[in-house]
């Protein structure tokens, strides 16, 4: 399927979900849906670096928080519309992602993961000591009651996050099926062999950290408007770091579908647990599911589906559709 068509279908699905939430007539669905969509963006962004390139980033919360604090800082300067905040948050987190990539990408495995964790700690310390954005006391953002045709501001935020999720999923799918996606896959499989095949691994890793960071920042940018009061402990919360890793792992990391499934499944479960039991059990759910998936389906739900399909006599592995009208776009890596 062509990318514009895919984008259009995603928009239609997103529009249908929005219409369904409006029809239900309960603001809670917008609040809960916003969080799930935010995780769709976060897990898709994490997967660009972690899933496609094999570089595990434990600092997702830092990029998310940077996006959120960019909004707080800009809001104090001049309250711009949210789409502008989104771009600003994306740029700030993207630049930090690039810097992190440049400084740490000679590290691999656990060393890289620890370096990203350290980045989150350093950034949180900086924010805690930055009075302009509220420091350790936090900052209030008063959002308008309503905006334009939307009856409630949360509907607007939900729609913004829905559009961002659609954009993130489409971007991930385009990457996966492009020359860039092939390059990412070779980095994940064997960097030495990738270099020997002419793949500029360092450049590609920088592209991945920048893109991943920018998307995470964009996910965080509307957050101050959603929560109303932003403090470092909520923006740099462990939930973001853990969920953005757990969701792609549960869904499957080699395809754009994995993070989407993982985020919808885990995000919805967490929302359900929050209203029925307690928000404190959220991380317990993540932990239990992760243990379960490591035992039953180490390659996530997508891996489980592929395993089932591989049993079929018609071997699908590596089957690709070559787009005759877009010859420069080569098909993507096999799962």
């Amino acid at each position, binding site marked *: 399927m062509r990318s514009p068509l895919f984008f259009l279908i995603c928009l239609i699905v997103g529009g249908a979900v929005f219409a369904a939430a409006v029809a239900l007539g309960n603001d809670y669905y917008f609040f809960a849906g916003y969080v799930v969509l935010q995780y769709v963006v976060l897990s898709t962004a994490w997967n660009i670096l972690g899933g496609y390139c094999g570089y595990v980033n434990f600092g997702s919360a830092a990029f998310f928080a940077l996006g959120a604090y960019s909004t707080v800082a800009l809001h104090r300067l001049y309250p711009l519309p949210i789409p502008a905040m989104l771009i600003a948050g994306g740029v700030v987190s993207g630049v930090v992602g690039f810097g992190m990539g440049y400084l740490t990408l000679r590290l691999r495995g656990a060393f890289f993961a620890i370096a990203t964790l350290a980045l989150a700690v350093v950034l949180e310390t900086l924010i805690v000591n930055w009075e302009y954005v509220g420091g350790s006391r936090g900052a209030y953002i008063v959002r308008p009651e309503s905006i334009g045709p939307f009856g409630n501001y949360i509907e607007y935020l939900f729609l913004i996050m829905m559009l961002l999720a659609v954009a993130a999923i489409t971007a991930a799918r385009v990457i996966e099926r492009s020359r860039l996606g092939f*390059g990412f896959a070779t980095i994940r499989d*064997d960097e030495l062999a990738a270099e*020997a095949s*002419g793949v500029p691994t360092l450049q590609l890793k920088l592209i991945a950290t920048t893109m991943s960071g920018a998307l995470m920042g964009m996910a965080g940018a509307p957050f101050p408007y959603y929560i109303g009061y932003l403090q470092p402990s909520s923006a740099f919360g462990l939930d973001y770091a853990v969920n953005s890793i757990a969701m792609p792992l549960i869904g499957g990391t080699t395809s754009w579908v994995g993070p989407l499934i993982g985020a919808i499944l885990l995000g919805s479960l967490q929302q359900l647990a929050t209203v029925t039991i307690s928000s404190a059990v959220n991380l317990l759910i993540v932990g239990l599911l992760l243990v379960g998936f490591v035992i039953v389906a180490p390659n996530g739900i997508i891996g489980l589906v592929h395993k089932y399909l591989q049993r079929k006599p018609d071997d699908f*592995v*590596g089957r690709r559709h070559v787009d005759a009208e877009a010859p*420069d776009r080569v*098909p993507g*890596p096999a799962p």
Partner: protein
Amino acid sequence: MTELLKIDNLGKRFVGFVALENISLAVAAGERVGLIGPNGSGKSTLVNCICGTLRNDTGSVRFDGHVLDGSTAHQRTRRGLARTFQLPRPFASLSLLDNMRIPLIYTVAARGIHRSGNEIEARCVELLREVGLEGKARRLPRDLTQVEMRKLELARAMAAEPKLLIADESMAGLTHSEIEEIITLLLRLNERGVTIILIEHIMRAVMSFSRRLVVLVSGRKIADGQPDDVMRNPEVERAYLG
């Protein structure tokens, strides 16, 4: 013949251990050179220094008129220097077809040779056919046997359309007939103008393939010349037989 690769006084140390000491070597275009030496003699280190996986501490590497010192491995590949690894390193999550695709879209395209998606696919199939792996084009490398894995490694290096191919122990662990298959493949490649440096322990293969033999011992080049002459060299005999 024109000089394709020129190594001058190349040296490499790992902390206190001297891996390579003042290695000088010139390889002309179209040559078939065998590089031999006991384990630990520095053959793979030399290959890694030539290909940019390791940085040489002293000396320089020139390839096709360009000084390669300071350039990365992928830049050297794009200049026409391809290699295979001692232990095959396929891209495990990609099908054989996609393994072939990587050098075509990253190396060949970087030289300004642009092919359409269909042309790339056709070229990948052609390369796989050449090494007898066409039937497994859509399979993953994990489905291959040892010799098939070696062939895939060679085919992927060939996909980069190199001027010089360094085959690092491409025949290790193979049977007699499998070795013959690989030698035939390398000879065919050489006939097309690709210069080949073969690093190998299997002397029968080295002697039948090489027109020139270079011997490394303890990081030093001790012999360089016609294979028969080199094998009669007392220093080489001493290094191999003690």
